[in-house]
Structure formats: C-alpha cells, structure tokens
C-alpha cells in the first residue's frame, strides 16, 4: 500500500480520469457524512497527492467561503493537482455519482422504506462517521492552536455555533476578519 502510494507520488500528478474516479469513490462510499475525513485519509495518507498542511489550508478556506464545504474542498484539491480541468474533475466526481444514486433511491422507493434494521445500521454508521469529522476538528485545532488568541477563536467559534446555535454566516463574518487581522499583526511582528 505504502509502496503504491510512493510510486504514484513519483509518477507526477494523477490524470483527470483518476481524479474523477477517486472523488467518485469517496462520494459513493461515505455514508453518514464526514466526507472531508475520508478525503484526508485517501488523498493525504493513502495516495499522497497533497500534504496535510496543504489539505488543512484548503479545508479552512473551503469552510469559510460560500458553498458546500465538501464541494469546495474537492474543487480546491482538484485544482492543486491539475489546474482548472482538475478542479472540474474533482467537483463532478464528488457530486455526479452520488447524485445518480440518490435519484435512483428516490425513484426506487416511492416513500422511504422504513425498514427498522436498515435504519439502525445507518444510525451506527452515522455515529462512526461523526468520529471522522471529529478527527478533522482535532487535527485542525491542534495545528491552529499556536497561541492564546487562536485558541480563544477556536473556543468562541465552537461555542457560538455548537452551543448557542447562532447562524454560521454572522459568526464567520465576525470571527474571520478578527482572526485574520490578528494573524497578520503577528506575522508582521515576527518579521519586524
């Protein structure tokens, strides 16, 4: 496994078809959410297409900008791999196959079949999938917590969205400029 990953890394960026298939695989296998966690495992750890810092930077931007973050992140990684066409391959890969499955499922069941066993099994898979997204949170937090102010921003953002249930947009509109301004000030201090 590790050898194939190293060979792929040595062979240069993957082809467009390969990018589409890789994202399509994630779109089709990720039950219960946590897609960015799947991507980290697949693209950073298994295939080594992108480094973890690069991935986490992309994730931060994908989260803060408009758009569904999983789609944004696919676009970002696709672009890093193969420019514009790579971005398109990433977005189509994550959206189209999963979309076809979803429509097929609606067409197949007039109403959603409430089979109890399926329901319970999916709840279990969803619980494990929360672990995927939790893991992403721990990784990003560990990397971002460089000093007191970033830690305060992590805690404040978490409390505002997770506990107080404030809407995302205004929280980002306040937290992001403040945090970026602080980071800029720190960077300038370090250089000065």
């Amino acid at each position, binding site marked *: 496994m590790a050898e194939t990953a190293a060979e792929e890394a040595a062979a240069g960026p993957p082809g467009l078809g390969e990018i589409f298939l890789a994202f399509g695989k994630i779109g089709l296998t990720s039950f219960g959410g946590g897609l960015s966690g799947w991507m980290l495992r697949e693209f950073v*750890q298994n295939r080594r297409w992108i480094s973890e810092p690069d991935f986490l930077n992309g994730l931060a931007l994908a989260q803060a900008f*408009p758009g569904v973050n999983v*789609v944004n992140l696919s*676009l970002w990684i696709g672009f890093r791999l193969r420019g514009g066409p790579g971005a398109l391959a990433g977005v189509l890969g994550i959206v189209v196959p999963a979309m076809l499955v979803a429509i097929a*499922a*609606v067409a197949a069941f007039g109403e959603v079949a409430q089979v109890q066993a399926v329901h319970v099994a999916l709840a279990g898979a969803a*619980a494990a999938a929360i672990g995927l997204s939790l893991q992403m*949170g721990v990784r990003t937090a560990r990397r971002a917590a460089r000093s007191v102010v970033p830690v305060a921003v992590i805690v404040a953002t978490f409390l505002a969205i997770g506990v107080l249930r404030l809407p995302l947009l205004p929280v980002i509109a306040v937290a992001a400029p403040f*945090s970026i301004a602080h980071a800029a000030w720190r960077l300038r201090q370090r250089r000065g």
Partner: protein
Amino acid sequence: MPDNVLLRLLIVFLPLSFLSVGGGQSILADIHRQSVDVYGWMTDARFLDLFGLSRMTPGPGSLLVTLVGWQAAGWAGALVATAAVFTPSSLLVYGLARLWARYRGAPWQKAVEAGLAPVAAGMVLAASFTLLQAAEGGVLAWAMAAVSCLALLFTRVSPFLLLGAGAVLFLLVQP
C-alpha cells in the same frame, strides 16, 4: 407552465449558492420554505422523506437539493437545481484557487490561512458536536464516535471498517 418550473428552480437555488456555508445546513430552512410553502412542489411529509433519504444515501448531504429538483421537474429539474446550487459558489472558489496559486507564499496569504485555521477548527468541532447531540443511540453513539475518532488519529484503519463496525454494533445492541 412546465417550462417555468426550471426557471423557478434557478431563481430559488442560484442565490442560495452564496448563502450555503459549511455542510449546507444553513440553507435547509429556506429550501423547505420555498419548495413547500412558496412554490408547493411537494408536501411537508414528502420533504421530510427526501431529507431522510439524502442523509441515508452516500455523498454530500447537500444532495437534498438534487432530490427537490427531481421532485419538482424530473431529471431536468434535478440537473438544473444541482447546477444552480453548486456553480456560483464553485466559480468563486475557483477564482480563489487561481488567486492563491498566483500569489503563493505572499504575506497576506499566510495571514489569511493562519487566521482562518482556528475559525475552521471551531466550525468543524461545532458541526461534530451538533451531530452528536442529534445522533440516535445516545451514549453508544458518543462512544462509537469517540472510538472512531481515536482510531483515525492514531492508526491507519480504513474508515470503511469503522462505519461497518458502527453498523454491526448498533444491530447487535439495538440502542
């Protein structure tokens, strides 16, 4: 007015593209309001059905949009709604990706990356926490999430195995 349905889907979903942040939950209430109350594409119960299905099938949870389009106007509706909700924000992020590649390593870029990192971390943790609170299975769900988180942080286990383990565990215990 069958032709107009596609147009209406565009009118509904294009602006929502810019308002969707995070996992797409931020626009859920508005999708519901527009498709049930404003345009009457479906009943409340049908909307809940589609929502449940979008959570059960793999892929981005935001595929609810596709299903709403499909319900409103068949295949054409599904395509139009999906394209409408993903294209505008994707073009914006594409522009951002180009800008990033062009000014690689510029001080402002480092500041934005360093500044957004803690905000993103807070968002991801909050999203996980919200999901945990809503998760079925109570303590068992929390335990499963914690185990899967630790396994992913410290081992190279496949997420597939963890999802399978979660499903089997819940079937055995029936929380």
